[in-house]
């Protein structure tokens, strides 16, 4: 093959024909990453070839193996960037909507206040990285890394559409749930490591919170999976496309799951782990500056994932109602995100309207209200399934 012009270097090939393509089906972000690399790598290869004609590096750069490797890197960046921007928009929406609810204006800096999120992020990053003297330094650092890490991981792992996913697991919902449930353990350890009584109580409360909502939540996930016949997210959504959206057969489950998701994201009615009235910032008390900023970001990422789970399990994922499947193919990602933001809006309104519950009340609610409701929900679905409706 001869490379005479720049266009020869930029091949713009089909991603599926790459022999090292990691997925079975078409993946949009990978395709974007692949094409981006073909432009960037092609340009680099062309430049090197101009200076040292006929070298091996240029051809190596655009070979399918290397293209695939760099495409994977770009793919990660794209996935993270989208999750990050979605989180920032959620944050902005919370500030604006909450402000309007409270009869004030919310943030006002640039782009209707959106730039305030970025300004705040930059501010926390520019602060001094302080570590209190008497904390257990190693535990203090690695727990916060893991809390942020797991949160970012699940935020990136949420598929936005059949073509926008990281890994198409057979057990997708379970994996997300498992990673989700990891963070409270790290919060517990982090609360202990900070050598602060507020953090300690906050960490204990995070564990208490988890035992109260996790069981009903898992029952409801099992119910949905039973209804769909699969743990795979794609299958669940396809099942909703074939029949009805699952919030119709399991209306109890839907309402309960919204509350459980709120608890999962540690948002206001259930944010007992960082109850600022009695425990200053709960388990985050000793974290300052960049660490705190990242924890905040991770919190909102968890909120985003909770909403995404509600959307996947009950609101038909990326489906548009009353529209044939041909139209569905256009913008499933946008549809999915709009639904996510709608669920997040419900959470914001709950935050505006409700007060924080007490620790014994959350256990009471979890085991005496959510648990029976989820079991009733399970029974209804079981009857429907046995009766052959689904």
């Amino acid at each position, binding site marked *: 093959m001869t490379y005479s012009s720049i266009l020869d270097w930029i091949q713009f090939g089909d991603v599926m024909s790459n022999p090292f393509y990691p997925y079975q089906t078409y993946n949009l972000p990978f395709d974007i990453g692949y094409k981006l690399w073909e432009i960037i790598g092609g340009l680099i290869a062309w430049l090197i070839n101009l200076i040292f004609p006929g070298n091996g590096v240029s051809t190596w750069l655009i070979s399918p193996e290397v293209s695939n490797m760099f495409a994977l890197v770009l793919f990660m960046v794209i996935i993270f960037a989208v999750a990050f921007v979605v989180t920032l928009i959620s944050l902005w929406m919370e500030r604006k909507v909450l*402000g309007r609810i409270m009869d004030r204006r919310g943030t006002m800096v640039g782009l209707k206040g959106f730039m305030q999120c970025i300004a705040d992020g930059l501010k926390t990053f520019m602060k001094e990285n302080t570590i209190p003297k008497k904390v257990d330094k190693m535990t203090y650092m690695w727990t916060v890394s893991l809390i942020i890490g797991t949160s970012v991981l699940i935020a990136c792992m949420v598929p936005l559409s059949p073509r926008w996913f990281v890994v198409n697991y057979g057990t997708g919902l379970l994996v997300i749930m498992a990673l989700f449930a990891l963070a409270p353990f790290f919060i517990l350890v982090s609360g202990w490591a900070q050598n602060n009584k507020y953090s300690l109580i906050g960490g204990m409360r995070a564990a208490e919170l988890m035992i109260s909502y996790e069981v009903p939540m898992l029952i409801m996930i099992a119910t949905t999976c039973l209804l769909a016949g699969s743990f795979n997210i794609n299958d669940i959504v396809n099942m909703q496309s074939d029949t009805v959206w699952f919030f119709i057969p399991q209306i109890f489950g839907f309402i309960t799951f919204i509350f459980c998701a709120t608890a999962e994201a540690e948002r206001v009615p259930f944010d007992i782990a960082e109850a600022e009235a009695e425990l200053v910032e709960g388990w985050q008390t000793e974290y300052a500056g960049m660490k705190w900023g990242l924890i905040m970001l991770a919190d909102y990422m968890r909120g985003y994932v909770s909403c995404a789970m509600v959307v996947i399990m009950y609101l038909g994922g990326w489906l548009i109602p009353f529209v044939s499947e041909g139209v569905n193919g256009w913008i499933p990602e946008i549809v999915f995100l709009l639904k996510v933001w709608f669920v997040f809006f419900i959470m914001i309104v709950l935050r505006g309207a409700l007060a924080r519950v007490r620790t014994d009340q959350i256990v009471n609610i979890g085991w005496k209200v959510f648990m029976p409701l989820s079991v009733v929900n399970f029974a209804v679905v079981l009857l429907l399934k046995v009766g052959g409706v689904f």
Partner: protein
Amino acid sequence: MAEKKYLEKYPRSPARTLWVLKPVGKVLRMLGKTVIHRPVTILYPYEKMWMPENYRGRPGLRFDRCVACGMCVKMCPTACIKLVDTENDSGEKVRRPQVNIGRCAMCGYCAEYCPVDAMTVTPEFELAEYTREDLIYGPKRLVYEGITEKMEIHLEETLMSDVENGNFERRISPFMTDRPVLEAAKCISCKKCEKVCPVKAVTMVEHGVNEKGRPILYPEFNDDTCICCMNCVEDCPKDALHINEVL
């Protein structure tokens, strides 16, 4: 019997587990209201709240009206006012009040107790400065353009004796009625009262000579020009003067 507007309506039913719909409805209604109309807050540095004319911001001074009687200095609860030497428009040396805004409590006493209404309140409330020295407002800086009538605070009091006489609509200020009186036995003719009087209401009148042949001078007060600033009373070395309070 008075009705109880709230207690008769609430609480109605004690057990309302997970009853969250009504507050959510309220919140959503407010959301709709503030999306359509504007929220009630104002964007402070760009928009400002309406303030009435008599708003008690920093004190203002009418330079020409002030007679440097020092009443504001005496009445200031935080002792932030003092009289300093300055020059008026025609270049004469005069004394005028200077206010340390950093200590000022905005109580408005200086305006209220000013006998000649030279001190006023002003609606100016943005007083932050970069240094403490900048917070000290000299007499020239204290002058506020556009002093209206409502910014003056008049000390309008009613005499209790007037109420008994049925003359309760008369308003007087203590600066009109209270006048210094002399206990002639204590006076040593030092003329200090004449010196400190800001309105030249004190004249020393000769009442014969003493045994050494020096003239005996007793102060006499011009009741029309006296403003009851009490400078003569306070500076009298023998406490020969006191204020006669009309009640």
